[in-house]
């Protein structure tokens, strides 16, 4: 993160970078930092609703949620869900991009088809996937039955519901991540690959030793985006399972949603938000650091 070119920046007025950031910053200040401050302050009170005055109780809410089975369950579910969506969707996205790297008429069509799931509005997709996952009658079971497999209650079985949601998320996002890898791959110089080929590297070695390191920034970006989406997307939970069966798909954001809007406990909702935010920020920081460290931006 510290590779500015000295020739460009040395004689500039230091005010300019701040002015460049100002337009974006103003919007963020009004709709991110200001409400975040309110969230943080609310997390130190026992407010029931936004309209409440609430008493200051310090870290009371934090102590409560960390002893509460529902919150800890949501934390564990979300960890599983993040692992089960980030890894497959990034790997699929990367493999798709590698396979469809050359632009031909066929690959153009295949790329579009893989990207289409991203275009489906989540409210529609979630409704459609209630049908896809329907036991016996649904799309999945209908065709699995032809392979001799018996009916499965994908969303209604506590052991399978979270996995089903992971499948939906992977389906929806892999094509989206593929686009970033396609863009990144265009930046990988042909001669580096040619050189590796001449030195006798096979395909797998070339991918691992030449392409992957060069795509460091892309991987960093996609992993961070995927991680964030695993924590900040909740529409499908609302439409498909509402956190059930028996909390098996209760994710952090759904826990927060319920505490804030259904259970009248703004204190707990905001404390959980702050915890989630700190976790995400730490994870993003670590992924950016590790993946960008070994990368060379200058050619």
């Amino acid at each position, binding site marked *: 993160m510290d590779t500015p070119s000295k020739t460009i920046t040395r004689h500039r007025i230091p005010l300019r970078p701040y002015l460049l950031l100002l337009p974006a910053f103003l919007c963020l200040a009004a709709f991110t930092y200001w409400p975040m401050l309110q969230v943080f302050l609310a997390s130190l009170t026992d407010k*029931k*609703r*936004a*309209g409440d005055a609430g008493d200051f109780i310090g870290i009371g809410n934090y102590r409560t949620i960390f002893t509460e089975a529902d919150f800890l369950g949501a934390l564990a579910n979300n960890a599983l869900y993040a692992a089960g969506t980030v890894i497959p969707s990034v790997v699929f996205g990367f493999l798709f991009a590698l396979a469809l790297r050359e632009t031909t008429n066929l690959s153009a069509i295949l790329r579009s088809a893989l990207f289409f799931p991203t275009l489906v509005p989540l409210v529609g997709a979630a409704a459609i996937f*209630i*049908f896809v996952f*329907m*036991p*016996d*009658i649904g799309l999945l079971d209908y065709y699995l039955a032809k392979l001799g497999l*018996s*009916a499965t*209650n994908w*969303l*209604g*079985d*506590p052991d399978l519901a979270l996995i089903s949601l992971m499948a939906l998320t992977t389906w929806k996002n892999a094509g989206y991540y593929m686009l970033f890898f396609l863009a990144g791959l265009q930046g990988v110089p042909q001669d580096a690959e040619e050189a590796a080929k001449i030195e006798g590297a096979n395909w797998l070695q070339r991918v691992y030793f030449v392409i992957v390191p060069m795509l460091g920034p892309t991987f960093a970006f996609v992993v961070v985006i995927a991680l964030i989406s695993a924590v900040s997307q909740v529409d499908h939970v*609302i439409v498909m*399972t*509402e*956190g*059930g*069966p*028996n*909390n098996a798909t209760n994710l952090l954001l759904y826990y927060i949603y*319920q505490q804030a*809007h*259904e*259970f*009248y406990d703004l204190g707990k909702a905001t404390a959980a938000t702050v915890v989630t935010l700190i976790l995400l920020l730490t994870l993003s920081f670590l992924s950016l650091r590790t993946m960008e460290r070994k990368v060379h931006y200058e050619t």
Partner: protein
Amino acid sequence: MFFRSAVGALCAGLIASSAVAAERIEFMFPAPVQGKLSREMQKLVKEFNSSQSDVEVVGVFTGSYDETKVKSQAAAEAGKPPAVVLMSANFATELAMNDLIVPMEQLAGDTDLGAMMEEFWPAVRPNAHFAGKVYSIPFQNSTPILYYNKEHFAEAGISKAPETWAEWVDAAKKLTKADGERWGIMMPSNYDYNGWLVQALTMANGGQFYNNVYPGEIFYDHASTQGALKFWRDFAHQHKAMPTGVTNSKQVSTAFFSGKASMIVLSTGALTFVRENAKFDYDVAFMPRNIRNSVPIGGASLVSFKGTTNTQKKAAWSFISWLTSAEKIGHWSRFTGYFAPRKTAYDLPEMKKFVSEHPDALRAVEQLAYAGPWIATYNTVAVRKAVEDEMQALLSDPELTFREAAARAQENADKVLAPYAEQTALSLQ
């Protein structure tokens, strides 16, 4: 920059609304059952607006029942309280406890609310009241009801709909075909529906689900609720007449339409939808009883948020009284399948004609004689979820006993209710 100003100008045009002399109020409503209902609701709003010139109602579609609650509450807390909201009937209690909605006496002016409520079915009245005051006016209501496939019944040699739990189990077993080819009975066990049906079974089992006078008490670890949990669970694990795990209401209705389920329990609010789409001979029947016939009501009522001006309140009342008139409430009932909570709607000629043509609509009304209020406590959703989690676990896990489940549901619900109990019933020094 030119782009930005062009867009800005375009949007500024959209902000500016035409100046109107009439008092403008917002009416938020969710989409019950099916989409064409939200179009019909907008038509009603238009009809009201053109019927007079003092009030202009803006009909605001607000998604599901839950989203309606989130949106109206968020708007109120942001300083734009909606004057009229069609809200899930059992939320009025907690909204009133949280001081978010106003009692109807603040809107009604000279109207005698007591006399007005006398025109509504007794079953819908408790949910409209809190602490002795009317906080909501019922508009569309339902009860759970048994839908069954008459062709399957004939095939299995069953001549009439089950009336008791014993007959129900018997029929379910007879109707079931092996290997999941056909299920005798399906009931939605997703959140919200789940708690409603556990309450229905508890009431049919002779019990009282919650204390409908004191909102800080719930009866989960009691024989009648335990029996309800066991009865539902046994359909899946013991009689194998129902799929295991959780099935949501959409899956249940789809299974019924496709002949995969012979009997289903759904809201009477889905009646018109079933009537229009079932390709086979179906009928509806009372929820079977164990000790007594009894069901909770469901559906939605009109509430008004705190913070509106007096003129808005007056305008809100003129809309509410128009919309809940026997004529309009009856029209809505015929269009949707919900029953009309206002008894007098059934005295009107078009209603008499309708129920004589559609006897299944009458069944829902007859069942009303045995109906009771819907669970409404301090923090209703959290209290309800305590038993729903356990019911879902029972349906998924054959090892779990109903006693353990009921005990845990009670423990978790009591934790939710504790703050209210401590500040009211337990507040003696």
